[in-house]
């Protein structure tokens, strides 16, 4: 019974004890690193297999249809059918494409999606590498995607792929700023950049103290991943595929895996930073429940993102960049300033939290009012108001 209470950690210990019987010390470390590496790299692939099914079902129900239901009960093997189809497609490389760069781009993007999983806290003492700069590492790995996108766009030897890559880079760079500002607010409140430390500091989940930071990070991360309504990068119904239009077969598969791996990782980060990660009822007494709560919270955020995808229309590029710089950045900055000021006041912690929550609601109210007025001005300019009709 005691073994099951801390199941995953005990399994790891038994495994290490077993292989130490016939391997030297460095062999044990090497084998453990390889095993953990394989598990973490499999996370994007796992995410793709399960989340594509979930997405098609969820969006199908939102659009009042059933979604895939032929391949297996409720269509759960649809992803495997898609994978097989992708694997057996012909691998086409454009005529004067830059071959090494062309082949390297999907690997880099999928690699960045996999590297994110090294710092995810699944439970107490279940983390790949508890870096001192965990959240900064996440942002840095996200910025590798920027270079990989330019590589893909340029190496395709295709004007439209290149322009698509430029737009993607503009979007990624613009939305890094509110993302980092929101993360900085959470780091200020938690007092540490370690992912484990942030989870352990969440006596009450941070979404109840810093809703503006949650919204800022959520939208900025959705834009970073290229998720609707920010998905003009691929815009399946408009510009075919943007920067990876020339990729076919397994290379397109890698982009696909990277997208869903990023989606899953971003949801996991949101769950860690704002929803309390692996915390939950009885998680302290039974640490093996930690990963369960973590997965549940992550799936909740994934469902929220899919819900948004099925409901909201797509942004134009200028609307999207204006939203980042004119709305998210000032709101996140104001939030950061307010939290920094409140943390310096000599008040007990719960009073500080209530003050922060009040400041956040004020920021939300002001932002909503200003946005409403701007929308009315815009509608009047284009004579869409009822009075002009």
């Amino acid at each position, binding site marked *: 019974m005691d073994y099951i209470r801390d199941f995953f950690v005990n399994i790891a210990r038994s495994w290490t004890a077993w292989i130490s019987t016939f391997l030297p010390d460095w062999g044990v470390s090497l084998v453990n690193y390889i095993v953990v590496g394989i598990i973490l790299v499999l996370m994007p692939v796992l995410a793709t297999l399960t989340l594509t099914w979930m997405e098609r079902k969820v969006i199908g129900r939102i659009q009042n249809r059933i979604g895939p239901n032929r391949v297996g009960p409720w269509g759960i093997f649809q992803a495997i059918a898609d994978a097989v189809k992708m694997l057996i497609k012909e691998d086409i490389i454009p005529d004067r494409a830059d071959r090494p*760069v062309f082949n390297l781009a999907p690997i880099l993007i999928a690699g960045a999606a996999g590297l994110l999983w090294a710092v995810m806290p699944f439970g107490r003492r279940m983390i790949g590498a508890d870096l*001192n700069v965990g959240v900064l590492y996440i942002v*840095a790995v996200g910025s*590798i995607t*920027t270079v990989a996108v330019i590589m893909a766009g340029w190496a395709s030897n295709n004007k439209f792929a290149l322009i698509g890559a430029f737009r993607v*880079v503009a979007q990624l760079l613009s939305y890094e700023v509110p993302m980092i500002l929101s993360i900085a607010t959470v780091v200020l409140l938690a007092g540490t950049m370690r992912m484990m430390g942030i989870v352990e500091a969440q006596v009450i989940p941070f979404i109840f103290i810093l809703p503006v930071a949650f919204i800022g990070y959520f939208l900025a991360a959705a834009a970073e991943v290229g998720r609707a309504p920010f998905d003009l990068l691929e815009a399946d119904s408009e510009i075919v595929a943007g920067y990876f239009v020339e990729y076919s077969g397994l290379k397109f598969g890698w982009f696909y895996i990277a997208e869903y791996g990023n989606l899953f990782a971003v949801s996991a980060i949101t769950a860690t930073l704002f929803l309390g990660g692996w915390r939950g009822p009885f998680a302290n007494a039974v640490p093996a429940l930690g990963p369960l709560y973590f997965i549940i919270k992550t799936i909740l955020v994934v469902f929220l993102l899919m819900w948004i995808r099925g409901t909201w229309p797509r942004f134009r590029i200028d609307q999207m960049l204006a939203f980042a710089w004119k709305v998210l950045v000032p709101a996140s900055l104001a939030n950061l300033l307010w939290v920094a000021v409140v943390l310096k006041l000599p008040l007990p912690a719960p009073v500080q939290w209530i003050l922060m929550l009040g400041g956040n609601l004020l920021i939300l109210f002001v932002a909503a009012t200003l946005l409403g007025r701007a929308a009315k001005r815009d509608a009047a300019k284009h004579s869409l108001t009822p009075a002009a009709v």
Partner: protein
Amino acid sequence: MQQVMFIVLSLVTLAAALMVVIARSMFRAALWLVLTFFGIAGLFILLHAEFIAVAQVLIYVGAISTLIIFAIMLSRGVMDPDARRFNDQWGVVAGFGAVLFVLLAAVVTRTRWPVALADVPADAIQRLGGDFVGSYVIPFEVASVLLVVAMIGAIIIAREQES
């Protein structure tokens, strides 16, 4: 183990830096530069400066490499892979390069570098932040002013002419 990692990282960094200079296509040279930046980030990690390593990846690979690649793409005639790589003065330049190498090697190997033998403190990041607004506040503020000036300049240059 540390020796092995250091040798591997240094070789990767130096080889990538060499390829930056002798690559035929400028775009590939920029990509080799990205690999150099990764190598340097690895060297920072060997020195227990994780914050600086991650900041290196975030700033250099994420932003500065993108800027360099855009600058290469937007300059005319720079991307032609069939142009001559070296002009006629390469002999003189190689000579001066060798002299500079000998000078630098002599200086680097003979200086007594002040190396701190203590371990990196556990709260290095807090101390870094404290120093930014403590003893190094003036360079910090001057750098902020410089960044604001650069942003304003970029906006003015890229603004649509409202005539």
